[in-house]
């Protein structure tokens, strides 16, 4: 198969057609040989057997002729014809014999040893011929010697039978040849049939082979073509285009190169589309609204961000006027016209208007884009949202003003110094403290404004080296000569890059605080004296108080414990009450339900009673009906019995009629006998007797029919009697059952009446129960409310007790403190 696939197409054609051609040749050869065979057989029939039959027939004719010749000779002798005539006849005879011998010889030549039966028959025939010839010769010899009578006798006695047998044998030969003929004909026919069959079979096989070859050939060409078509149509590269599928022929090679081409093209297309998709994704992923505009200012394409920024769908955006989406459409129009004229525009401020009315400040960067030929196609514009940036700037400005104000508002002299010790900035308090204007201060040496400039210089250098200095004491000198003692707190400040920019220093005026400190020391000494005296008195009092408090604490703790217990108890009681009340509610609910159920039961029991009464009535009617049926059945039974009796009496009558008929028959026979005795006079009577006999026969027949009918009637009547018997029995049992049913229904009705009464009582008592349960429910609710109130007040009491206890404790602690 694989070899066939890889063959060249011309080779496939040559192979297939040569196969078909060789097969056809075989068919033709076989047909010719078969036809020859048939022809041979037919020829044999035509030639050999027909000749044989002819010869045999000839022999028969000659035999007959010889026999006739002999007879003629005899007759001639009888008629005393001339000797000349007789000799002529003898000559004829020998002529005929000769002819016979010729035929026999010919036939012998034709019937060879291969056909033993034919040979035998022929041999026998010739033998008979010889014997006949001998007798005939004898006859002729006798005739010639004038012994005619003797000759005649010999001829009839001996020669004729032999002639008959001879002719018979020869006839057998003819028949045998005819049989052979028929046999050959049958063989020829069979051969023809076989040949026809063989030819048909071969022809059929040839057709099959041709079809198969045509199919395979077509498939081997169309399959690869189909694969190629699929490849082109679907571009499915997963298709098997290997040599197995397409074969190694011209088509296979063509398809493989074809598929290679297509796969390369597909790969190229895929790459390109991937690139385009990447570019598109980049555009879509941009957080800036991007848009392309044509020369008339219409939007050609937008990204998702633009859709979001404008609040308009992409479909609506494309084709609409670019300028329409801004608060100042004219400015926007000028903007993109500028792009077309200059090729590029940067940071072009515009305000984008959202469809919901909100606006967005944007800066537009736009440039023209060109096609491959270098012609301007449109403008690509990218907006940047600057709303946040603007806000940030505002905030920053506000915060810096605020910081400045804070600094200015500070009561401490604040100052910033650079690395050289020059003042960079000051606040108003510094101006006040130094008495020098701000302009003079800025740029002057920081150390110049202190009584000890060196110490000040060391101070700020310390800040630069350590990063921070706290409570550095210095004395500030005012321009009017007065001094202020200050403590300096200073730290370096850095720019955004983390480089030290300078020192920020804050001074605190401590002149006043120093003076107050001195006064305070004086006061403290006095107070200590007084406290010592008081303490002595107090400790005495405290002892007493402590004792009292101890008692108070212990009793209050006891109160607390008791109250806690009570509160717990009350809470538990409240819980129990609420549980009880919920239980009572459930009971109430269930008692209501049971009351409802009891009512339903009473109602249904009432209905049952009604049904039972109806049932009783129906049963009574049934019993009445049954009684009527029984009466009817009784009368039917009587009628049937009567019918049976009457049919039996009919049987009796029939028997007697039969008897009469029989006797009439006998009488008729006797009458006939009598008539026969009477002879001629009794003839009329015999007829009458015959008539009577016939009548008797008829009446017998009729009685037989009647008996048959009667038998049927009796059978049916018997069945009817049985049926009536069964029917009356069934009615009896039905009656009994309906009486029982009536009894059962009556008892049931009684018991259901009792059930109704009981149900009514149940309803009444359950209603009372419901009322009682309602009352219990109300009471339980009251109890519950009271319990809840008690619990609340107990909680309050507990709280008070607790606070009392805490108070005692606190007092105790305080007292202990005092004592300590």
């Amino acid at each position, binding site marked *: 198969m694989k070899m066939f696939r890889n063959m060249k197409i011309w080779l496939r054609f040559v192979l297939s057609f040569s196969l078909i051609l060789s097969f056809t040749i075989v068919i033709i050869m076989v047909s010719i040989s078969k036809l020859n065979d048939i022809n041979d057989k037919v020829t044999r029939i035509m030639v050999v057997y027909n000749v044989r039959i002819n010869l045999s027939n000839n022999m028969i004719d000659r035999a007959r002729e010889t026999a006739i010749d002999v007879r003629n000779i005899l007759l001639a002798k009888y008629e005393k014809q001339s000797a000349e005539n007789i000799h002529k006849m003898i000559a004829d005879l020998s002529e005929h014999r000769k002819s016979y011998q010729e035929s026999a010889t010919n036939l012998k030549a034709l019937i060879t040893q291969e056909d033993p039966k034919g040979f035998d028959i022929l041999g026998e025939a010739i033998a008979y011929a010889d014997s006949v010839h001998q007798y005939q010769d004898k006859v002729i010899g006798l005739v010639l010697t004038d012994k005619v009578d003797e000759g005649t006798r010999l001829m009839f006695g001996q020669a004729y039978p032999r002639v008959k047998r001879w002719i018979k044998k020869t006839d057998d030969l003819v028949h045998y040849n005819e049989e052979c003929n028929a046999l050959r004909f049958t063989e020829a026919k069979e051969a023809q049939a076989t040949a026809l069959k063989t030819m048909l079979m071969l022809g059929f096989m040839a057709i099959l082979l041709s079809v198969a070859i045509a199919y395979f050939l077509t498939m081997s060409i169309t399959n690869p073509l189909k694969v190629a078509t699929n490849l082109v149509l679907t571009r499915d590269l997963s298709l098997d285009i290997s040599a197995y599928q397409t074969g190694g022929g011209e088509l296979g090679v063509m398809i493989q190169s074809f598929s290679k081409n297509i796969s390369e093209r597909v790969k190229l297309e895929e790459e390109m589309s991937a690139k385009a998709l990447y570019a598109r994704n980049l555009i879509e992923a941009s957080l800036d609204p991007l848009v392309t505009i044509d020369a008339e200012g219409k939007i050609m394409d937008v990204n998702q961000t633009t859709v979001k920024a404008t609040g308009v769908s992409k479909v609506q955006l494309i084709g609409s006027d670019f300028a329409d989406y801004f608060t100042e459409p004219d400015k926007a129009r000028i903007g993109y016209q500028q792009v077309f004229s200059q090729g590029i525009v940067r940071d072009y401020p515009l305000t984008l208007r959202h469809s919901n009315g909100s606006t967005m400040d944007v800066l537009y960067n736009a440039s023209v884009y060109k096609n491959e030929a270098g012609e301007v196609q449109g403008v690509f514009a990218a907006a940047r949202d600057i709303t946040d940036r603007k806000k940030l700037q505002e905030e920053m400005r506000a915060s810096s003003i605020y910081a400045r104000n804070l600094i200015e508002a500070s009561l401490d002299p604040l100052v910033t110094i650079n690395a050289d010790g020059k003042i960079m900035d000051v606040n108003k308090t510094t101006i006040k403290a130094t008495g020098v204007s701000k302009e003079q201060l800025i740029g002057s040496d920081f150390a110049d404004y202190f009584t000890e400039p060196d110490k000040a210089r060391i101070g700020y250098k310390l800040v630069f080296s350590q990063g921070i200095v706290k409570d550095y004491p210095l004395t500030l000198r005012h321009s009017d000569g007065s001094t202020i003692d200050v403590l300096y707190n200073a730290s370096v400040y850095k720019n955004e890059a983390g480089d030290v920019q300078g020192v920020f220093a804050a001074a605190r005026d401590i002149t006043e605080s120093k003076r107050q400190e001195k006064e305070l020391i004086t006061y403290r000494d006095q107070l200590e004296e007084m406290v010592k005296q008081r303490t002595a008195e107090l400790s005495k009092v405290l002892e007493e108080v402590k004792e009292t408090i101890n008692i108070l604490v212990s009793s209050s703790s006891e109160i607390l414990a008791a109250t806690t217990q009570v509160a717990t108890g009350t809470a538990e009681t409240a819980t129990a009450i609420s549980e009880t009340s919920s239980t009572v509610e459930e009971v109430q609910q269930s008692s209501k339900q049971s009351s409802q159920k009891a009512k339903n039961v009473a109602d249904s029991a009432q209905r049952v009673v009604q049904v039972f009464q109806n049932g009783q009535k129906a049963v009574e009617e049934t019993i009445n009906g049954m009684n009527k049926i029984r009466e009817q059945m009784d009368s039917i039974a009587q009628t049937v019995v009567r019918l049976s009796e009457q049919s039996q009496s009919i049987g009796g009558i029939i028997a007697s009629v039969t008897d009469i008929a*029989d006797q009439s*028959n006998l009488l*008729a*026979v006797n009458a006939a*006998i009598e008539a026969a005795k009477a002879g001629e006079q009794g003839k009329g009577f015999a*007829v009458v007797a015959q008539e009577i006999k016939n009548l008797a026969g008829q009446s017998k027949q009729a009685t037989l029919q009647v008996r048959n009918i009667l038998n049927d009637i009796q059978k049916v009547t018997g069945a009817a009697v049985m049926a009536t018997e069964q029917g009356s029995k069934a009615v009896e049992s039905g009656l009994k059952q309906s009486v029982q049913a009536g009894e059962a229904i009556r008892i049931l009705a009684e018991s259901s009446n009792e059930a109704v009464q009981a149900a009514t009582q149940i309803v009444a008592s359950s209603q009372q129960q419901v009322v009682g349960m309602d009352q219990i429910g109300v009471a339980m609710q009251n109890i519950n409310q009271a319990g809840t109130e008690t619990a609340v007040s107990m909680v309050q009491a507990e709280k008070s007790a607790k606070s009392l206890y805490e108070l005692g404790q606190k007092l105790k602690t305080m007292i202990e403190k005092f004592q300590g």
Partner: protein
Amino acid sequence: MKTENRVLLKKRAVEMAKEPELKTEGSEYIGIIAFTLSEENYGIETDFVREVYHIKEFTALPGVPSYILGVINVRGKILEVIDLKKLFNLPEKGIGELNKVIILHNDQMEFGILADVVHGTQIVAVKDIRAVPYTVSGIGEEYLMGVTKERLIILSAENLLTDKSIIVNEEVI
């Protein structure tokens, strides 16, 4: 009158009309009474038949051969009855209600023979009666006259009447 009946009557009339053949010239024809014995049809010459009698009761006789059924009373005359079935070894059917007795007689003898069914009188040409074939089994050849084309076996009443072997003359000691 119904057509059927008319046809029937016509048929009968035709049958009756073609009697000329039945001229009883000399002994060319004999009248017989046809009867049935065990499904076989028999005939007996009318000349020897006195009458056909319906057997109502009979008296069995002791000490007689089995083919003698017994004696009957026919209008005051006591006659013996022979059961030919026994005599001819035919299968027994029993005496039913329809059993008849054909009373035969000649100058010396008078007795009855039992028949199952008596069909009536017929006239048979003597030339139609053929010799009895050997196949008729069990029947004493001496009692048979011959068989007709219709397989009606004609009994020879004369032979029956004159047969001495039927006469019972046994002495009981």
